[in-house]
C-alpha cells in the first residue's frame, strides 16, 4: 500500500463520528489535566486505561493519544498564565510566556503556542507516516536475539528519563523487571511470587501498578506540603498576533519543529530535552538575546513547537518496534495489550486501520486543539481555580473503580495500595518511577526472548554479539550508558532537570 491510500484509510477511520468524538474527549481531557498542575498525562492515562477497555481498539488508542498531546498543550496554558508548568516540558514556555502575560500580551503568547504546536504537530505527523512503515518492515526480520537486544537498549536509554542517580535508575529498572515476573512462568506454567493466590497467576495488573506508582504516590507526595495556587491573569483578551509577531515566530517555529522531530524519536524524555534545546538555540540565534527572559515571543514559539513535534514523533519507536520512548508510551503499550494487540512491527500489517487511523487522528486532534483552545481559554482559566483538595479524592475513586472494572478482581485494588506506598517511599528517597514502569512492561518480553534466544543458540550467549543487528543494538545500549555516565553530560543533564522543578 502506498502512502496516499494508507493515509486515506487512516482518515476514513479517524473521521468516523465516534472516533472524532473520542478524539475530542481525549484532547479535552488532556488539555484539562495539562492545565491543572499536580495531575499529569501519565496518571490520567493510567486511570483511563480501564475505561478504554470497553471501547474498540481504534477508538481507545485515538482517545489516549489525544490525552497525551492535549496535555502537552494544556501545560503551556498554565505555564503562560500562572508561571507554573502544568507539564514538565512546558517549563521553558513559562520563562518568556509568563513575562508576556504580565505585559498584557497573554493572548498573543497563547496564540503563538497554539499556532506553533499545530504546525509542528502537522509536520511531525507526516514524518511519522513516512518513516514508520520502512522501520516496521526492517523490524520484521528481527528474531529473538534482536528483540532481546532491542529491549535492553530501550531499558538502558530510559535511564536518561530519570534525573539524579544513575544507580537508582538502574535499580528501578531491575525492580520493574522482577515485578514483571510475578505470575505463571510462560514455559513451564510454574506460578511465581503469587503467595498461592490464584488471582495473581496472570501476573500483576499493569493498570494497578501504574495507578499506584504514578497516581497514588503522587497524591501522597502532594499531601506532604499543601498549598493553594494563585491565578495571576484573570482575563485574556486580544488573541490576534500582529504582523511583526508573525514575522518573528516563523523562524523559531520551523527550527523548533525540526529539533523536536529528531529528538522526540530518541527514547528518554526527548520532548523535555527538545524544548530546552530549542530555547537555547533561539537565544543564541537572536539579534536581541537580552529580550529573552523578559517576554520574547521567540522564546514561546520555538520550545512550544519543539515539544509538540517531539510528542508526535515519540510514537515512532512505539508503533514500529513496540518499544516505549517514555512512561506515557509505556502506558500506550498497556493499552494495546489490553485490546489484545501486541505492539510492534506487525501492527502495521495486521491492523492497518488501527495504525493509520491513529496517525490520521493525530492531525485531526491537533486541529481540534486549536479550535478548542483559543475560544475556550476563559474556561481553562476558571479550571485553574479548582482546589487540589477536591481533585484528589476523585482521582483515588476513579482509580479504584476503574481498575476494579477491568477484571472484577479485588487483588488489583490491593495492588494499587501496595504500589502506592512503595512508589511513594521510592520517590521520596529520590528514585524516579518511570524506569520501574518500563521495566515492568518489558520484563516478560525480555525473559521470553532471552530464553528463546538461548534455546536457539544451545546455551551460547555469544549469539547476541555474533548477529550484526543484535550486536549493533547492544553497542548502542552500551553507548547510552557511557554517555549518561560521562561527567560533562551529567552536568548538562542536571542543569536541564533542575530548572524543571
Amino acid at each position: 500500500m502506498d502512502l496516499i491510500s494508507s493515509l486515506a484509510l487512516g482518515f476514513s477511520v479517524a473521521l468516523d463520528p465516534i472516533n472524532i468524538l473520542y478524539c475530542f474527549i481525549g484532547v479535552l481531557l488532556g488539555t484539562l489535566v495539562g492545565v491543572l498542575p499536580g495531575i499529569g498525562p501519565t496518571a490520567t492515562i493510567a486511570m483511563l486505561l480501564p475505561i478504554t477497555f470497553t471501547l474498540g481498539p481504534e477508538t481507545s488508542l485515538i482517545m489516549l493519544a489525544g490525552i497525551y498531546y492535549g496535555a502537552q498543550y494544556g501545560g503551556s496554558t498554565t505555564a503562560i498564565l500562572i508561571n507554573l508548568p502544568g507539564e514538565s516540558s512546558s517549563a521553558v514556555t513559562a520563562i518568556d510566556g509568563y513575562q508576556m502575560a504580565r505585559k498584557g500580551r497573554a493572548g498573543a503568547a497563547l496564540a503563538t503556542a497554539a499556532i506553533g504546536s499545530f504546525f509542528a504537530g502537522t509536520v511531525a505527523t507526516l514524518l511519522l507516516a513516512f518513516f514508520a512503515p520502512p522501520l516496521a518492515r526492517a523490524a520484521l526480520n528481527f528474531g529473538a536475539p534482536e528483540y532481546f537486544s532491542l529491549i535492553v537498549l530501550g531499558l538502558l536509554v530510559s535511564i536518561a528519563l530519570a534525573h539524579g542517580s544513575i544507580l537508582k535508575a538502574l535499580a528501578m529498572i531491575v525492580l520493574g523487571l522482577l515485578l514483571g515476573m510475578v505470575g505463571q512462568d510462560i514455559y513451564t506454567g510454574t506460578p511465581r511470587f503469587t503467595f498461592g493466590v490464584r488471582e495473581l497467576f496472570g501476573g500483576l495488573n499493569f493498570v494497578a501498578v501504574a495507578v499506584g506508582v504514578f497516581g497514588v504516590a503522587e497524591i501522597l507526595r502532594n499531601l506532604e506540603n499543601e498549598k493553594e495556587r494563585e491565578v495571576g491573569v484573570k482575563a485574556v483578551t486580544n488573541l490576534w498576533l500582529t504582523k511583526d509577531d508573525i514575522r518573528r515566530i516563523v523562524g523559531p517555529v520551523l527550527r523548533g519543529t525540526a529539533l523536536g522531530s529528531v529528538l522526540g524519536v530518541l527514547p528518554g524524555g526527548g520532548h523535555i530535552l527538545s524544548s530546552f534545546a530549542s530555547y537555547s538555540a533561539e537565544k543564541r540565534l537572536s539579534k536581541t538575546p537580552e529580550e529573552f527572559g523578559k517576554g520574547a515571543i521567540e522564546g514561546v514559539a520555538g520550545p512550544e513547537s519543539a515539544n509538540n513535534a517531539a510528542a508526535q514523533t515519540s510514537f515512532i519507536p512505539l508503533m514500529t518496534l513496540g518499544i516505549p520512548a517514555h512512561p506515557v508510551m509505556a502506558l500506550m503499550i498497556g493499552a494495546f495489550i489490553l485490546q489484545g494487540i501486541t505492539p510492534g512491527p506487525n501492527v502495521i500489517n495486521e491492523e492497518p486501520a488501527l495504525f493509520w487511523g491513529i496517525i490520521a487522528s493525530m492531525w485531526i486532534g491537533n486541529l481540534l486543539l486549536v479550535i478548542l483552545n483559543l475560544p475556550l481559554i476563559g474556561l481553562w482559566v476558571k479550571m485553574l481555580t479548582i482546589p487540589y483538595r477536591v481533585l484528589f479524592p476523585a482521582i483515588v475513586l476513579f482509580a479504584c473503580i476503574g481498575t476494579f472494572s477491568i477484571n472484577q478482581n479485588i487483588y488489583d485494588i490491593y495492588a494499587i495500595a501496595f504500589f502506592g506506598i512503595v512508589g511513594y517511599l521510592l520517590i521520596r528517597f529520590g528514585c524516579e518511577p518511570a524506569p520501574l514502569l518500563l521495566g515492568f512492561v518489558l520484563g516478560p518480553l525480555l525473559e521470553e526472548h532471552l530464553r528463546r534466544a538461548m534455546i536457539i543458540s544451545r546455551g551460547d550467549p555469544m549469539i547476541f554479539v555474533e548477529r550484526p543487528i543484535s550486536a549493533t543494538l547492544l553497542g548502542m545500549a552500551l553507548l547510552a550508558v557511557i554517555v549518561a555516565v560521562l561527567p560533562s553530560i551529567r552536568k548538562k543533564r542536571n542543569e536541564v532537570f533542575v530548572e524543571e522543578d
Partner: protein
Amino acid sequence: MALNASRNDLASGALFVALGGYFALEGLKYDFGTPFRMGPGFMPVVLGGVLVALGVAVAATGIGKPDAEAAPAWPWRGIALVLGTILFFAATIRGLGFIPVVLIAGFATALSSSRNSLLAALVVSAGLCVLCLLIFKVGLGLQLPLFGPWLRF
C-alpha cells in the same frame, strides 16, 4: 544531622536490598535450569542478585554525603486515609455495593487533606458519588450492584 550519610540513599538502598533479596530467595525455590534451558527460577535469582548489588551500591554512594535539604514531614494522615480507603474499597466493594462504598471512600479521602472540613468532605463525597454513578454505571455499564448483598434483608 548526626548521621554523616544521605538518609535517602541509605533508605532506598535498603529497600532495594530487601526487595531484591526477597525475589532471589523466593526464586531459589523454583527450578533454576541451565543456560540452554532456563528454568522459571533463572531470571528471578539473577535479577534479584543484581538488585541486591545495586542496592548496596546506592547505599554506599550516600555515605559521607548528607542530604542537602531536610526531609519533608511525613503525611501520616494522608497515608493512613488514602491507603486505608483503597483497602476498604477492595474489602467491601462486593459486599456493600457501589453507593455506600463510594460515599464512604470519597468522604475518607477528602478528609486526608487538612484543608477539607467535615462539611466540605461530605459535599465532595456526595458529588463524587453522583459523578461516578454517571460515568461508570450509566456511561460504561459497569456490572456492580448499587447496594450489595450485605445490605439486603
